[in-house]
Structures are given as C-alpha cells and as structure tokens.
C-alpha cells in the first residue's frame, strides 16, 4: 500500500510554515495548528502552565468576544478542540468548506491578538476548570495518579519529563497574568508554529487567505529550548502506590530512543510482539494460559527529548505483582534471544493498519503533517514512515529489546488496593 499524500508547503515572512493537502471527497477542511511548546518547556515549581494557557486560547481575543470562538464555529457546523502534551500544543478544527475563512480569522486572532482580551477573571475561571479536569481525569479515577508517579520515578526532578502535563495543582495557583504575557510572547509566535490545511482546499485558495489573516502577526524572538542531559537510570527504581482500586496493576518503564531515532520503530514493533494483541507473547501467557492477568499492554511512548518503553499488566483478583514482573522480564529475555519472523510480520501489519487508520480522516492527516514536520522536518514523511516499518528485521528488534530493556534498569511501579502492599512487586525478581 502506498501512503504518498501530496503536501504543498509555503512559509510566510514571519516564519509561519504552512502545509496544504487537497482531498475533495467531502466538502470539509481540517485546520490544524501546532505550537512547538509543551510541558517540557516549563520549570519545576511552575508546572501545568502550557496546558492552562491552552484553555485561555478558547476564551476570546481582541476581535473575538468571550464565548464567540466556540459559538461561531459550532453555528457554522464545525468542531474544534486542542490538546497539550509534554512536547507540543495543538489546536484543531474541522469546518465546512465555506467556513475556512472564519476558521483562519479565529485562529490568527488568537495567535496575534490574545493578550488584550485576557483578564484575571478568565484566568481564575480556567484555573478552576483545569483543577476539575485534574480531579476528573486523575485524582478521582482508579490508577489516575499512576502515570505521573511512574514518570517521576523514571526522570530526575529537574528533567522536563519529570512532571505531568496537567501540572501540580499547587503550581497552578502561583500562575498570574504576567506569566500569561511572558509565555505568550515567548512561545505563541508564528515562527514557533506550523499550520496544516487538509481537505476541500488547494494551495491557490489557501495561500492568499493565510497571508491575509496571519501575515501581519510579527515574528517572535528566538525560542528557548530545554537541553537536559540524556535521561538515564543508574539503577532500578521501585515505587508502591496505594489507590482506590480493586485489582493490582504493575507498570514498568525504561528509557528508550527518541521519536524517529534508530531503535524507535524497533520498540514499536517490540511492544506489539510483547503485548496488546491476542497472539502477543504476554497476552498468551498471562491472560490466556496462566490466567493471572486481566489485561496486558505495552507501548513505546515516543518523545522529543527521548522516549520511554512502558509495560502495564493488570492482575486478576488476588494475584501478586511479583510473579507478573517475573513473567515480563522472562518474556523480554526470550525476545532478546530470538524473534520469530511471523511475529514481526504480524507486528508490522498492525502498525501499518494503525497508521492507515489515522490517515483516513483529513483531521488525522493534518495532525500527522504537523507531527512529521516537528519531529522529522518533512511534513510528507508518511511514506517514509511506512518504509521505516518495512525495514525492520527480527534481528534489529531483538537487539533493541536487549539494549534498551533487558540490559537496562527499569522504573517499577506497583499500584495496589489500600492496605495491600503485600501484593506489590518485590525486588530481586530480575535477571
């Protein structure tokens, strides 16, 4: 299957890079804007700001009254949202063809003219909304604090991946309007963003419109980037978290190569061979044969400053995590000895299918163009991404498992029901 999607690119004088992809099968356009800022750009003590700022971007700008952003888009039959990760912040809309100009007006107004409309009251309300988001998505949810606990164990306190993207709630309280202004001027500049348009649009139509709405926004200063030393664990880290859960769950994480670096695709394949599918090794052993696990999952969490490879196993009622950790380590050791060609074929099929699935929608394509541009410099990288998967060999996957997982220390988190620390994984189950 070929995934060559035609992408035309141009740049404005202020540094905004624009990607245009035409697909006229449905009269809609995906408008997707990435700012190259995320929680990795924050500092200890001031965490959660990139995400809080994302919320303020929907509250109106100089020419867009409070509330009008969503009202205008919804009344035009469009959907929109945004999201923040450690590496980047994105804003996306999917609009009927006729509303493209409206979309660009709204998107450019908040890139160029946000500050005049940002008030203490808006900041306070969105701070409350974010605190509720934190309660709903993390604090009031079983295993909701596991991810941030795992990352905190894997990365040292000063590393930008140490803290959760939603931030520590105490830090949010310290954020004031001055922080909003500095953050906006530092990161929300056209030279720190890329804009992708995909769907019922062509470059001849897009270019004058983008020039018209974004052209007057001044270029910002050079953007500072965090340059932490490469993260590594000197030795294994073990953490136990008591939580309001029924079933114990084991999390294991290792440092691994950055997004698109050599080894990244190998570990994507390794995750599919290890877990997540009915024929994968841990699923067969722990879920189907021994029936000691409720589910197993593994993934390569690819990032800009480095990645983490993560394995998650949920125990059946009453099963301790020590034996699950032992099984994970044994499975990895056997993968470091040999991978069957049919296992790799299956993993590759799965990864290809996921990629094609994502590229089916114009929204998925637009987001991918921005992702590829950010991480590889080439918005049209999809076909090369596919070729990256096709170049994998059983040997290259095997070697990556040995280098990054078997021969390296892990952060091991046990989440157990309150009062049941006896179910946690105990040290000494290693090689």
């Amino acid at each position, binding site marked *: *299957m070929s995934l060559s999607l035609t992408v035309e690119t141009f740049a404005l004088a202020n540094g905004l890079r624009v990607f245009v992809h035409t697909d006229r*099968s*449905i009269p*809609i356009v995906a408008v997707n804007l990435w700012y190259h800022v995320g929680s990795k750009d924050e500092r200890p003590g001031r965490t959660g700001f990139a995400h809080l700022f994302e919320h303020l971007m929907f509250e109106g700008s*100089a*020419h867009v009254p409070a*509330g009008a952003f*969503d*009202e*205008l888009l*919804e*009344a035009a*039959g469009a*959907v929109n949202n945004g999201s923040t990760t450690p590496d980047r912040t994105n804003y996306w809309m*999917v609009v*009927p*063809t*006729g509303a493209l*100009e*409206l979309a*660009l*007006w709204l998107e450019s107004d908040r890139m160029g003219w946000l500050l005049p409309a940002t008030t203490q009251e808006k900041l306070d*309300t969105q701070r*409350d*909304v974010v605190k*509720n*988001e934190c309660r*709903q998505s993390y*604090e*009031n*949810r*079983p295993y909701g604090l596991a991810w941030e606990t795992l990352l905190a164990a894997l990365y040292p306190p000063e590393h930008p991946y140490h803290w959760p993207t939603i931030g520590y709630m105490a830090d949010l309280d310290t954020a004031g309007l001055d922080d909003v202004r500095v953050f906006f001027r530092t990161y929300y500049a056209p030279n720190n963003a890329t804009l992708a348009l995909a769907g019922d649009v062509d470059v001849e139509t897009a270019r004058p419109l983008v*020039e*018209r709405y974004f*052209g*007057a926004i001044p270029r910002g200063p050079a953007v500072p980037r965090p340059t932490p030393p490469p993260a590594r664990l000197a030795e294994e880290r073990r953490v136990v978290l008591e939580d*309001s*859960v*029924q*079933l114990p769950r084991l999390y294991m994480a290792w440092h691994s190569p950055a997004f698109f670096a050599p080894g990244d695709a190998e570990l994507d394949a390794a995750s599919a061979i290890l877990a997540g*599918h*009915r*024929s994968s090794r841990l699923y*067969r052993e722990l*879920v*189907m044969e021994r*029936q000691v696990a*409720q589910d197993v999952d593994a993934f390569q969490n690819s990032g800009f400053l480095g990645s983490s490879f993560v394995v998650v196993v949920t125990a059946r*009622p009453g099963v301790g995590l020590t034996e699950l950790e032992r099984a994970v380590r044994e499975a990895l050791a056997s993968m470091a000895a040999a991978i069957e060609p*049919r296992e790799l*074929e*299956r993993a590759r*099929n799965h990864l*290809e*299918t996921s990629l*094609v*699935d994502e590229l*089916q*929608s*114009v929204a998925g394509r637009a987001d991918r163009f921005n992702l590829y541009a950010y991480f590889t410099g080439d918005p049209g990288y999809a076909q090369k991404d596919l070729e990256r998967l096709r170049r994998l060999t059983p040997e290259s996957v095997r070697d990556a498992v040995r280098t990054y997982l078997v021969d390296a220390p892990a952060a091991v988190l046990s989440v157990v029901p309150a009062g049941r620390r006896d179910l946690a994984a105990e040290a000494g189950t290693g090689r």
Partner: protein
Amino acid sequence: MSGIDRTRVPEPGEVVAFEFPAVQRRGLDNGLALLTARHGQFPLVTAVLVLDAGAAGEPADKAGLAHLTANALEAGTRSRSGEELAWALERLGVEFTAEASWDAVSLAITVPRQRLEPALELFAEIVRQPAFPEDEIARLRDEQLASILQRQKEPRALANDMAARFIFDPDVPYARPLIGLQTSVAGLTRDDVDAYYRANFQPAGGTLIMVGDIDPDAAAALAERHFGDWAAAPRRAVDFHVRRRVEKTTIFVVDRPDAVQSEIRIGDVGVPRHHEDYFPLLVMNCILGGAFTSRLNLSLRERHGFTYGARSGFAFRRQPGPFIIQVAVATDVTAPAVREALREVNALREHGATPDEVSAARDYLAGILPLELQTTEQLAARLADLAVFSLPDDYFQHYPARIAAVDADDVRRVANEHLRPDRLAIVVVGDAQRVAPELEALGLGPVEVHTIT
C-alpha cells in the same frame, strides 16, 4: 495585507450540499440483508455484520450473556483454536471486534482490499462456526467478573450504572449494566453461551454491511459465498414495557467516602428511536447540553468553573432509553451544580430558546454529519443505524432537511413534554456525609443514601 479589518467576522459561505454516499441494498434468500456503499481514497474495506441478538433479549437472570457470547466468538472455531485464530487474523492485519448493545450484536473487520477475500472467509468462520471451548468461556467469564469489580471503583462507570438502576424499574433490562452483574455473570456457563448463540445469531433480521473500496456486485458475490448457506431460524420476540422507577423526583446518593468529586447524573426515561419528536429532541438537546456552547456547559463550566464539562443526551434505542444530564464537580459545589443544572432545564421549558440558538443548533447538527463520515468505519456505523432501527436507505439523504424543519416552537414544546423536573432520578456518586445534607436542603425530593459493597 495588514490593512484588513479584523473586526469583520468572515461570514461562513453557503454550505456546499453534501451528498451522502449512495446505499445499495441486496438480500440473500436466508433473510440476511446486504448494504454497500463506496467510500474513501485508500484501498480499505470495512465489513460489519449486525445481528438481531442484542442484550435486551437476555433472560433477566443471565444479564451479561450477550456480552459474553459476543466475546466468546474469538475463543476458537470448529477448526481452529483461539490462538490459531488470533494468528490467522493478525497475519492478515485484521482486528476483529464484537460488541453487544441493547438492540444488536455487531461484528466488524477493517481490511486492505487485497486481503478482503481471505479476511471475509475467516470472519464467516468465526461467526458461523464458533467452538465455545469450556475453559475459554470460563476464562472470559472470570475476566468479565473482574471488569465488573473494577467498574465499582471507577466513579464515572459507577455513576452510569447507578443512573440506569435508579431511572428504570428493576424489571426493565435497561436497568442493568450491559456487562451484567456479579450475581448473574458468576453463574454463566458454556451451555448458556451456546444456547444464546443458537437462538440469536442467525441471518434472519441481520444485515451485512460492506463499505469502502468495493462495488455492490463484488460484495454480493462475497456475501453469497460466505453467508448464503447460513440457515435461518425463527426470529425471537423481544417484548418488555419500559417503566420509570420513581414517579416523583428522588435523589440517590451512592456513597464514596472521601471522594474529591461528585459524579452527578440527572435522568429520566426518554423516548424510543422511532419517536415522532426525534429531530426536535436532537435540536433541543443540542441547545441544552449536546455541544460545547450548550447552556449547561456554558453555565457549569464557563460561568461557574464548577466542572471540566457538562452535557446531556438521549440514548435512543428501540424502546425508550434514558435521558441523562451528566457532570462531575468538586465535592463542595455538588448541590449548587444540581441547582444550576435544573435552573437551565426550567428556563428552557419556561422561555424556550432564542431563534439564534435554534438556528445555530440546526446548523451545527447538519454541519457535523459529514465530519463524522470520513472513515469507512464511520460510514459503516451509520449504515448499521439503518439496519438496527429499520430506517429507509435514503434516510441520511433527508437528514439535513429534517433538522432544518425544526423551529423554536418545536424546541419549547418538546422541552416541556420530555424534560420533566417533577419525576427525575438524580444520582450523585460522592461523599454522602458531605453532600447529602446540602442535597436534602435543595428541597427537590427525598434523599436516599446507598452503599456499594
């Protein structure tokens, strides 16, 4: 170019008429219908088999059986073990999914066009020749029991389950979770699964949907080859009467001591999918709580900062499903959030909506239809709606016009008819000690405190 007037809002242009893909219908002699539509620019095909085997037809003491039976299909066939089956599917790069809803069981694959033939052959084998190995059924049942245990600790899932329990009379199937109850699932056996399969998984009343890079003749040939000799059985009759549990508004507090948040569900029995007010209700709900700029979200999130989001919706089923307003709020604003939500309901009943709101809601609903038809899976899901609810094949061609016909009078009328503050089940999953007294003080109705063990 810097001379543009930024205060001028670019008016959205004329909406380009969206042509819903043409739907072709064929039928096999055994009663299985075939719906096909061409779609997309990648060589992919999604096949969905929709069977009239939904959980509404489960015996009351076997709640969760439809879910278990659907899952058990992948446990192996007469000629392949579960593991061999998994390998065969994954070698083709196919994910097989099986899902039981109240009204149907849906089985689906998405596959590159060049692997469609072997994939569909395997699909038919899974659906028509399941082996239901005893030990695999026991394993899947135990997993289902563990999932039920987990739901009790997951506040959102728990609140949804409790809303169903307190909205519907206990005899109504919809009062139970689809996944079943500890008591009902613990007793399920291989024989139960096999009996449910034999009685319900059959071609009559079913529909095979194929969407993507395929033409109707090729689809018909494949359907005939793999499903043509599937013997039909008499169709089951699913008959029950939907009644609400409370006739006067009652507050049910489900205690989670020390919870930092309250999960609130304000619910009532809604209407069936084939109700004459279906389109006015869509528009009315969009104004109340169906979109980001809905009244509930603007009030509870944007004005009060009580929550990350508030929404409302009707679950449309063959029989009347629930209408539910849902919101999660910090514990200390639980009662104010309930009060504000009901204030919005009452305001919509008393004053109706403005013409601008109605027109924005209509445009939103009509506008998002094509946005949700971008993938073969999305279009197949719409065709599955046609199958499950026996809607005409050109239903979606007329959808925008039906939405456009709703006016402000309709909205106000259906708000008054279908939003009834006097007979609500208000369910709050949270710290009872802290929230029950405040909820009592609202004076909306009696407060019952329940404990989940």
